[in-house]
């Protein structure tokens, strides 16, 4: 062992010290990690889980489903009588606990029209005795309605009983399973259209903010610092006022006899007021305004760091100002433009409040329908599926973006 190299013990010791330092550092971030896990990662995981896990039916009629397991639904025979009998017993039980309605609702979703059948049969079953059902429950049930002889109905029951389901995801793609279990188009296209519309609105907003922010950021970056600082306060001012106030003020501006229309009318430019409020245009205008700072700030910070001597160099080399700007300056601002565009795009595609307030039906975005399913229709699983798909969409777009522009090219400050 010569003096110029480390001994094994020394290497191990220094590694141990290094590891201890790393662990210590990790310890400092632990509270934040816990916080992020509780407030961010676990809700998303729950959402993903909820979008495929739907145990209601499997909890309502567990024994019948166990019996149905052996039944081959692809064939054209009714389930075995033991299964029918068990179903009758459990339906009677549910009826007594006033839970039969829930089962009816769930099965009805897969086989429309079966709700009333299940409810009425449940009512009748309440009046029969358990002994009678244990003896020949299957024939009792089948005697109530000839609809119970429909194999599709039983297929629906069996399918509804699966605790894990892809049906919500199919719904988000405007697809469904027909009674035979095959995937087919829904009659009305809702969600794909809505995703497409949200995407379009987000793209418009991104383009508009970029167009408006670029010259402003350029001016801010080249103006004397005294003026630039004052204007910067104006750019940041929106962050100090409530989002609701800012959005609501757009109602005052855009409504039929609002500021914009009455100004235009009194100037004699238009005879009839524009219908602007509660349209897609209103969503785009208001959100462009609200998200503008997210475009200005990264652009400004990138432009501020571009040495003015680049443009001067181009001019001294004989380039005219506009070609020099396009060929030299513009490419240097790409990191700022892409950072701003990514920010604005991702924020706007999932935006909720502004479309909800000024968008009307025309200006609704995907988040509004998610909120609708959470608050009004109480279909949390569908809301979760829609939300997960939105997440997937954003991740996919981010990936494409990384491929095209390169995330390393982003510069936020």
């Amino acid at each position, binding site marked *: 062992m010569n003096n110029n190299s480390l001994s094994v013990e020394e290497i191990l010791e220094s590694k141990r010290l290094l590891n201890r330092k790393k662990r210590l550092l990790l310890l400092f971030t632990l509270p934040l990690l816990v916080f992020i896990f509780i407030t961010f990662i676990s809700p998303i995981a729950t959402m993903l889980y909820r979008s495929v896990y739907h145990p209601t039916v499997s909890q309502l009629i567990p024994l019948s489903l166990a019996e149905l397991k052996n039944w081959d639904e692809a064939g054209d025979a009714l389930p075995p009588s033991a299964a029918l009998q068990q179903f009758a017993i459990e339906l009677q039980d549910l009826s007594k606990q006033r839970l039969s309605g829930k089962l009816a609702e769930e099965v009805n979703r897969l086989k429309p029209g079966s709700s009333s059948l299940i409810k009425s049969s449940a009512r009748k079953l309440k009046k029969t005795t358990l002994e009678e059902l244990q003896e020949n429950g299957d024939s009792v049930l089948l005697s109530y309605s000839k609809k119970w002889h429909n194999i599709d109905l039983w297929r629906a029951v069996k399918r509804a009983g699966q605790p894990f389901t892809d049906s919500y995801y199919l719904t988000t793609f405007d697809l469904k399973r027909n009674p035979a279990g095959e995937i087919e188009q829904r009659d009305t296209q809702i969600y794909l259209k809505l995703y497409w519309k949200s995407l379009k609105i987000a793209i418009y907003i991104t383009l508009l903010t970029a167009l408006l922010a670029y010259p402003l950021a350029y001016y801010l970056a080249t103006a004397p610092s005294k003026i630039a600082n004052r204007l910067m306060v104006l750019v940041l001012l929106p962050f100090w006022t409530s989002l609701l106030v800012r959005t609501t003020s757009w109602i005052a501006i855009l409504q039929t006899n609002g500021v914009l229309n009455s100004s235009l009318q009194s100037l004699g430019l238009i005879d009839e007021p524009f219908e602007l409020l509660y349209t897609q245009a209103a969503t785009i205008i208001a959100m462009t305004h609200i998200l503008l700072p997210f475009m200005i700030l990264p652009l400004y910070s990138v432009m501020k760091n571009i040495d003015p*001597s680049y443009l001067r160099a181009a001019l*001294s080399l*004989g380039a005219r100002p506009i070609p020099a700007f396009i060929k030299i300056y513009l490419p240097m601002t790409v990191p700022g433009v892409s950072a701003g565009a990514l920010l604005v795009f991702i924020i706007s595609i999932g935006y909720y409040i502004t479309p909800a307030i000024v968008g009307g039906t025309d200006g609704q975005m995907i988040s509004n329908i998610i909120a609708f399913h959470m608050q009004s229709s109480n279909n949390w699983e569908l809301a979760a599926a829609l939300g997960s798909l939105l997440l997937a969409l954003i991740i996919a777009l981010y990936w494409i973006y990384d491929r095209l522009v390169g995330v390393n090219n982003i510069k936020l400050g």
Partner: protein
Amino acid sequence: MSEPVSDQQYVRFVDVKKSYDQRSLVVKNFNLDIRKGEFVTLLGPSGSGKTTCLMMLAGFEDVTSGHILVNGQAITNVAPYNRNIGMVFQHYALFPHMTVAENLAYPLVVRKLPKEEIKRRVAESLALVELDSFGKRYPGHLSGGQKQRVALARSLIFEPSIVLMDEPLGALDKNLREQMQLEIKRLHESIGFTAIYVTHDQTEALTMSDRIAVFNDGVVQQCAAPDVLYERPENAFVADFIGENNHLSGKVLNRAQGLAKVELSDGSVVTGQAMDCPETGEACVLAVRPENLFIQSDKHSFENSIEAEFITRLYVGDFIRYFFKLRDKTELMVKVLNDHDAPSITAGAPTKLTWSVNDGLAFNPPPSS
């Protein structure tokens, strides 16, 4: 301006003034004539207005008053991209998203030259700065010296008659800087462009320039060849800014025939050259360069001689600095070549320092002291 222009006045600054805020003048009455093919350096402390002068010539700053003429034509109203002036920036300003070859081609592309010619000239230009194999690299992957060469090549490739350089070597380390100084000189001599070079490094200015304009406070203090500037500075600022100097404060006893008799603050009376020397009876400074100051011995004895006390000596290598103190605590430094003659003195020993009448220059005291 219809009279024929001599090459002596290829670039002219005539009473140029510049103010950024319409109140204080950054450049005050700048006058300078530059010969065609000359290498002129603007030297001065930072903030003295050198860059501003360059920017006015390049067209990036307006001239507040006065004229700038190139080849007899006023260029104040010519757009920067039509001036055909090459420029090397301090941080190179190489376009980071273009390769070296694209950077070099840019001035030719905007001039819409044919593709083959551009290719040929870029190759020639790369060869000129000895970077033949670097054409496909991006500036980010070059070392500081290589970037500097590319910037230089780019400013020359469109064959401008004037090239401006604003502290082009400021970001390089010492060895590389000296190498690049030679490189720039070589290019200047082989191509023959008119160079206006800005620096705050006096050694750089002295080694490279035909003439140096020393700037302070927006005013040219003196514009002359390096040797004149070093040996016959016109005022105390130039004497101090260029090279090292000992300053002895004193009072003028009388002035005659370009000589000044000065009573130093320690009471001794010496004689020196009167530069911008004030009137009899007024305060002045006498500047003596450390290499012109000698420790009195049999070998070295001159007209002027004063008593001093030895403090310490600093070993530098090729020479040794000796520090002395006068009776009134003024410190002096003597530079002695590190040869067999370098004396060894014990600290506190009384010594006599001596210098020639020609080497002591009497100046008006600078306003700050």
